[in-house]
């Protein structure tokens, strides 16, 4: 009697899950498959053209100078963004990992950029990072000037450093999120471990290096993966800041322009697949590792 009911419960459960499974199967995997099919075709105008082209689009893509710039930019942006957001998040978390008056105000403050679209703030950042010098000094350069610092070229710096500056608004948006992740991690560290280290004569700095930071590694890994995949997908921010300047080009923008401006659906799909592969390389090992770790627990 109990067994049957338990068994029925399980079937109902699977049944309730089924619509989601179907939706994900179509909207994620089905569509990815469609995109992959187009990337292997010769579709170059408004009319679908599924003539088989093999890997020609991919070969052309990797010989494409613009795509080279895209890949370098992605590498630079991801590095600066991830390192920036992790460092800022960790710093903020350490600063806020105590009870004091106003602590929750600061926490909410640092989290609020997440609530605002980058299309909205992108223009403000473009103004802030204005590189004009001399009479037309403006934005952050003006502020830096009052501290006696030379004006920077910001995102108009030579390739490939321009895009490193575009990481600044991205860090601004995501630092609060990383901070929340680290705060969670810090809270999970038992006080006894820290106390034991202090009793042994370790200074605060040594407590951090020896006890706290190593225990934050799983959180760090989650943060790296989430930030990493977001940076591969970045689109709205760069468009808002750059007006499609090729020096700041990234694969997701190239994909948009090549599909909708040049009507080259085959190449657009090829870029989309390369983008997917880059994300998969980052995400799949992590998912496998984290699931295995859960199974062990």
């Amino acid at each position: 009697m109990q067994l049957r009911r338990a068994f029925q419960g399980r079937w109902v459960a699977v049944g309730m899950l089924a619509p989601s499974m179907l939706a994900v199967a179509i909207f994620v995997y089905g569509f990815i498959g469609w995109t992959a099919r187009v990337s292997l075709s010769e579709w170059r105008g408004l009319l679908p053209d599924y003539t088989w082209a093999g890997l020609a689009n991919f070969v052309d893509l990797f010989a494409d100078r613009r795509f080279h710039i895209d890949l370098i930019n992605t590498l630079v942006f991801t590095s600066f963004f991830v390192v920036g957001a992790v460092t800022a998040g960790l710093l903020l978390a350490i600063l806020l990992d105590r009870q004091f008056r106003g602590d929750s105000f600061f926490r909410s403050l640092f989290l609020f950029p997440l609530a605002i679209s980058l299309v909205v703030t992108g223009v403000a950042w473009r103004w802030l990072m204005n590189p004009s010098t001399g009479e037309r000094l403006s934005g952050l350069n003006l502020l830096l000037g009052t501290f006696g610092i030379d004006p920077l070229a910001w995102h108009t710096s030579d390739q490939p450093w321009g895009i490193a500056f575009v990481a600044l608004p991205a860090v601004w948006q995501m630092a609060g999120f990383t901070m929340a992740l680290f705060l969670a991690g810090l809270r999970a560290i038992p006080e006894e471990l820290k106390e034991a280290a202090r009793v042994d004569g370790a200074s605060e700095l040594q407590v951090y290096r020896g006890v706290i930071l190593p225990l934050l590694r799983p959180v760090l890994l989650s943060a790296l993966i989430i930030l990493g995949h977001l940076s591969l997908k970045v689109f709205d921010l760069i468009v808002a800041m750059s007006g499609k300047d090729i020096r700041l080009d990234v694969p997701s923008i190239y994909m948009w322009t090549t599909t909708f401006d040049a009507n080259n659906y085959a190449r657009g799909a090829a870029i989309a697949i390369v983008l997917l592969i880059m994300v998969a390389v980052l995400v799949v090992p992590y998912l496998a590792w984290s699931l295995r770790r859960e199974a062990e627990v």
Partner: protein
Amino acid sequence: MWRRLLVGVATSALVLSACQQAAAGEVEVFSWWTAGGEADGLAAMVEVFNEEYPDLTFVNSAVAGGAGTDARAQLATRLQASDPPSSWQGHAGQELIGTYVAADQIEPLNFLYQEEGWLDVMPETLIPLISEGDNIYSVPVNIHRANVMWYIPSNLQEWGVEAPTTWDEFLATAATLEDAGVTPLAIGFQWTHMHLLETVLLGSLGADAYSALWDGSGDWSSADVTAALETYHEVLHFANADASTLEWDQAAQLVVDGTAAFTIMGDWAEGFFKAQGLEPETDFGWAPAPDTDGLFQFLSDSFVLPVDAKNREGALAWLRVAGSQAGQDAFNPIKGSIPARSDGDRSLYDAYLTSAMDDWATDTVIGSLTHGVVANDAWKAEIDSALGLFLADGDVGAFQEALVAACAETGPCS
């Protein structure tokens, strides 16, 4: 209790959103005229439409975004789904023909031209540029001129220079200006660089050689093109360093502020100068871009008739208004362009526009690259990529090679 509230809100919202269905008798028109003079001009033309066709409702599906890329993306997905609007705005020329005619998505309009007698009022040199073979594919509403150089006369006087008439003169004047601490040329985002490029190409190569580049008979790898690109490279040395952060109007602002001397921009810039409170001829001046006197490098906003248009009769009604004297004279003075028809009411147009109408009637008509007349989208995108790479590395040789490749892959070159 919260849950019930949530469910209630969700259901009512769903019901509300499902009620937004389209009604019949509607004419849905896509454009990118969403703000400022453009939106106002469109509204004026819609008023004419409503007067003449009171039974039809105009649905304004305008989407903004630089020269319509977002609008075109939305249009592309509608066309993919075989759900075209009644009409859409496009740049007359290859932008429309290379994309939509090639995909059999717009209808030829010769019958309409004959019915309305437009062949008598639209310039002869214009018709071939908006046709494929003998088929005319769009109704041009306005004409803009691309090869115009703008400046503030009182500033030029102060600096002791004159508006140059050739590129050599420009380079000499620029050197003088630079010594005086003035930025010779104000320019903005990458598309404004393409805009400059086409005027330099036209000026350097001349009308015939320039046109030949676009129909496959010209040679992109020739020494003349190399010389033109070298000139372009030199001219860019005299541009403002922060160009990549400026919209075209912010670049024009530099001229107004006296920080820069010249900007080469289409004549929609006139609307900007006037909005700053400046008067044509007295406060701001213009001249054809160097070496292009007598040449009218044009672009035109025009409307098409989609195959399987929604409410085809309504679509035709809209096209009739767009091509009519009343419609064009309602739209253009506000928008800041000249009518495509030659019988516009001159009293409605200001000093610059009337001079442009004179030039339109007498000059040789040449097509613009940046604004979709001479090259289809795919080709223009390839040129844009090549230009972007050139702006990043300054390599003229590689730039020319890329242009040759672009013509071979996506243009008529073999």
